[in-house]
């Protein structure tokens, strides 16, 4: 995308990413940069990524044993993928929907699957969850409904 074209030396890019409040560690992997940030300030991240010309591609939720949810923010910059890995606190995390239109549907879907409360989302209603299921049905599926894979 054109707004992503400005060339930023890699060392400067990493410095800007690690300066985001809550960024703890950066890993350079074959599929892009991974920022490990358990206490990430997601709104500060969104502002900085916008300033860098990055596009929010999607977000991934992963259920954790302690009841919290790992949230991965996947961004794309022209020739690079940048991922921020953080977690909810008390089942909640700030919503990016008021700042970023594409975040709205993504957050609604994660709310459907993992019952994450996206604080500040203007319309956190079900997106694709069937009405007969409860929010968070990816987190704790009914064991009786699980059919083991055939061996």
């Amino acid at each position, binding site marked *: 995308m054109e707004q992503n074209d400005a060339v930023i030396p890699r060392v400067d890019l990493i410095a800007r990413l690690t300066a985001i409040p809550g960024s703890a560690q950066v890993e350079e992997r074959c599929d892009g940069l991974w920022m490990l940030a358990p206490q990430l300030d997601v709104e500060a991240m969104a502002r900085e990524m916008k300033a860098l010309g990055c596009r929010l591609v999607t977000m991934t*939720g992963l259920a954790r044993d302690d009841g919290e949810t790992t949230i991965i923010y996947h961004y794309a910059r022209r020739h690079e993928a940048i991922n921020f890995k953080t977690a909810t606190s008390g089942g909640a995390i700030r919503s990016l929907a008021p700042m970023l239109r594409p975040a709205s549907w993504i957050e609604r879907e994660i709310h459907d699957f993992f019952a994450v409360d996206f604080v500040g989302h203007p319309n956190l209603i079900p997106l694709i969850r069937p009405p007969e299921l409860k929010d968070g049905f990816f987190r704790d599926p009914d064991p009786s409904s699980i059919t083991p894979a055939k061996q």
Partner: protein
Amino acid sequence: MPYTIPIGPFHPALEEPYKVSVKCVAETVEQVSVDVGFSFRGIELLAQRREWVPGVTLIERVCGICSNVHSMTFCRAAERIAGIEVPPRAVYIRTIMSELERLHSHLLWAGLAAEFMGFQTLFMEVFALREQVMDLLEAISGNRVNYGMNRIGGVNRDITDPKSAIEIVQAMAKAIANDVVPAFMTSVTARGRMAGTGRLTKEQAIEWGVVGPVARASGVDTDVRDDQPYLAYQELGFKIVTQQEGDVRARVVVRALELLESIRIITDALRNLPSGPLRAFEGMPNIPPGEAIALTEAPRGEVIYYVASDGGRTPARVKIRTPSFVNIPALEAMTIGQQLGDISLIQASVDPCISCTDR
């Protein structure tokens, strides 16, 4: 007096179930809302209960149009976790299959667009061409919808007669260049029906985060094949097609010109098909603990898979984000201020895939 028309979720004008609620004043659209989820199948959750190999078969059923892209992107993510290097011949075969899939998807869409415009002769012409692509896909894979070509570490089938395939796509290239592209680009019917309709400006395209032909038709030059090259796209070269107008016609033109670029890529890949094995290993894959993302340019735009493994027999997490998931919400920006009668054409111009969106 404003009034609201609910279109769908089950409606003859929609190929798949989703709902568009349109609030109008006279014939002008003032407000739009879109509801999805009517064909939710829980494929992400199901994939986490399947072993890796049957998981590929399941993932291929996310979509009936871009089935190959889904299984391939899932395999690429698993291969990244396991550090598996796919043999060059398999890489080229995946590239050829991806572009044949784009060809049939764009031709399917072009035929439907012609029908929406009331251009029946063009519809027949385009669908006859698409049938040739389907025949070629069937000749290669044995299937017309779910091709079963991809496996973790390579492909299941070889392309045994590249010379015949080249002859078929070259014959198609002539028909597309001489008939289809001019019909969409210069015909008075097409221009009159599409130009200026359903405009999405470049700024709006960036704001809504749209991808694929929808983004490129608004002047946003993004394409995973160029941005983050994979398969054989770097070796074969690739030219992004963009338009600046951002209207329905621009979306048609982008897809029409992409047909020619796909044919060029298929031809070059078939002519330069490397020799060698089809897969990195025989038997079952061993996917160690880890996580990876893989991005692919599907016919409708960028697809991303996040796959995590805990070293077990099944994936620990499979996350799928399809292009329609980000393109459909932008219908709001395209339709407000437009005529009610143009809604079906505008929504069709996004080429929405509800199977992909709902999974």
